[in-house]
């Protein structure tokens, strides 16, 4: 365990990326990410909040940002010039996703299946395949008070979640603390969202479902080799098994947020718990102490590497 006596020193703010994730949805991950961003800002830090839960971005509900720019995000799919095409069939052979096929004299594309690997374009001997951008979603950038706010939103019916997340993460800079709101689960969008971050906070609930999904999430962050700790939300509603598990696996619990009807009510109407509920501040102060220690460890590692 880290000691909890250190205080947060503002000038250490640069270059630290924290991902707030959860195996299971609805554990309060966004609440914690948004409140952490707000609390850090209050402590004098420069903070950027990046909502990578692009299928259902909810950070804006809590942070109420003023959006200044909106960017359409596109991916490239093949555009076949039928005049140049010799119907050799090579594009269909290389495509692993059935997104382009050559039947007799005719080449057809199925855009929703395309992964934009560019294989067909590279292989085409007749130089008949160009790029066509298709929109997969949008990224909005603005300010929520002093917090730099970035959010992605996937287009309905689109499946290119990881590609959009990658674009949201391009907004990370190394002169501030970045907080990433990660989509729930443990599959490809989550991997994309947490790759390369400095620290992961896994938010869970003390219930059997919460524990099951936490175990999966722990497996994922361990496989990616990322340092992490657990946050137990609604502490008190369930049983002790999550804490027992963390203890037996030697996993730090960075914060326990109690189950409290007041928190649920503030949350339900989109309020910030660190602003409205005094007792929550204490918990977030502890979390900050914890993160400060985690960051110290990282800086030490960085120094050793240089």
């Amino acid at each position, binding site marked *: 365990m880290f000691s909890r006596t250190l205080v947060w020193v503002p000038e250490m703010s640069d270059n630290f990326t924290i991902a707030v994730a959860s195996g299971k949805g609805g554990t309060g991950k966004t609440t914690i990410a948004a409140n952490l961003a707000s609390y850090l800002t209050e402590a004098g830090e420069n903070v950027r909040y990046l909502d990578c839960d692009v299928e259902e971005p909810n950070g804006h509900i809590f942070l109420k940002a003023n959006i200044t720019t909106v960017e359409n995000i596109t991916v490239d799919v093949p555009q076949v010039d039928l005049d140049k095409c010799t119907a050799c069939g090579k594009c269909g052979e290389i495509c692993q996703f059935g997104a382009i096929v050559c039947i007799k004299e005719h080449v057809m594309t199925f855009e929703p299946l395309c992964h934009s*690997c560019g294989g067909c374009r*590279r292989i085409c001997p007749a130089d008949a395949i160009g790029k066509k951008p298709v929109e997969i979603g949008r990224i909005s950038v603005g300010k929520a008070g002093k917090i730099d706010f970035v959010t992605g939103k996937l287009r309905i019916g689109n499946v290119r*979640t990881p590609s959009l997340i990658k674009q949201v993460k391009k907004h990370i800079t190394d002169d501030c603390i970045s907080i990433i709101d990660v989509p729930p689960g*443990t599959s490809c969008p989550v991997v994309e969202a947490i790759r390369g971050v400095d620290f992961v906070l896994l938010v869970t609930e003390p219930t059997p479902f919460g524990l099951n999904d936490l175990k999966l999430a722990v497996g994922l962050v361990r496989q990616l080799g990322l340092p992490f700790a657990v946050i137990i939300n609604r502490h008190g509603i369930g049983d002790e098994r999550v804490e027992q598990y963390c203890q037996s696996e030697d996993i730090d619990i960075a914060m326990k947020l109690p189950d409290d009807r007041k928190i649920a009510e503030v949350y339900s109407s989109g309020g910030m718990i660190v602003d409205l509920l005094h007792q929550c501040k204490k918990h977030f102060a502890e979390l900050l102490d914890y993160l400060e220690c985690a960051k110290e460890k990282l800086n030490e590692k960085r120094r050793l590497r240089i």
Partner: protein
Amino acid sequence: MKELVVISGKGGTGKTSIVAAFASLAENAVLADCDVDAADLHLILAPDIKQRNDFIGGKRASVITEKCIGCGKCAQVCNFDAAVFDGPVNDLVRKTYKIDPVACEGCGVCVHFCPADAIEFKDAVNGQWFISDTRFGPMVHAELGIAEENSGKLVSLIRKQAKQIAAQHNKDLIIVDGSPGIGCPVIASITAADLVLVVTEPTVSAQHDLERVIELAGHFKIPTLVCINKYDINRKMAAEIARKIDNRNIAVVGRIPYDTTVTKAQIAGQSIIEYSNNGLSEQIKSLWLAVSERLAGKEVG
């Protein structure tokens, strides 16, 4: 045979607890857990696995180190930054390339363009899927490997298997615990289903997500019903949700109060119906009745 898919948009609204309760109320159903990313239904249904199968969702590249000449072509053609100059030394070069299995999309482009034929392209086992018996009937479920992709494909596979089992055993209903979100797994969960039930709760976040999933179900033209769970944590918002979706001609077929029984039943490994006989069970029974009637083709609301 009918297929009911229960989804939630946002997770944590009590979707799986409701599916488990439906499982104990349905007379003749097959259960399918399509929340492959964070499968929880098995914690209540305690399936006895009868058949175990590997799930091969796609392919994956890997460098045969001895053959690599370190030319970097793979990194140049890979659109997913999966080929990295970080492989071990061999007889030819001091450093070779290797493929990051987590980043690899399995597109095969590097395999084709490697001048030394040094990249293998093999089937990737992305997880396992199971056919099981439960106290409420047969169940199809899966475990996606850690950090694996292709969950949409796995969802489609589970639904297909559940349909086959339903046909074999003369079951008239498939109850699917769907995936969260609006991306590829949930699209695979709901396409061509007979009915979608969205479980939501009266919070700004859930309301926001509800609109997105309703839009998605509309996009695929699937009949949709809504159940508001924990409606009493914010009655005003519950009423607002009901009014909003009424404008879209979607019926609210259930209003379930906040009740700690849900968590207690979960801890006991039982469905809400098995665990208690209180008002909550009655509410869920009437929700089930409304859903069954709609599946039978009647208008409800």
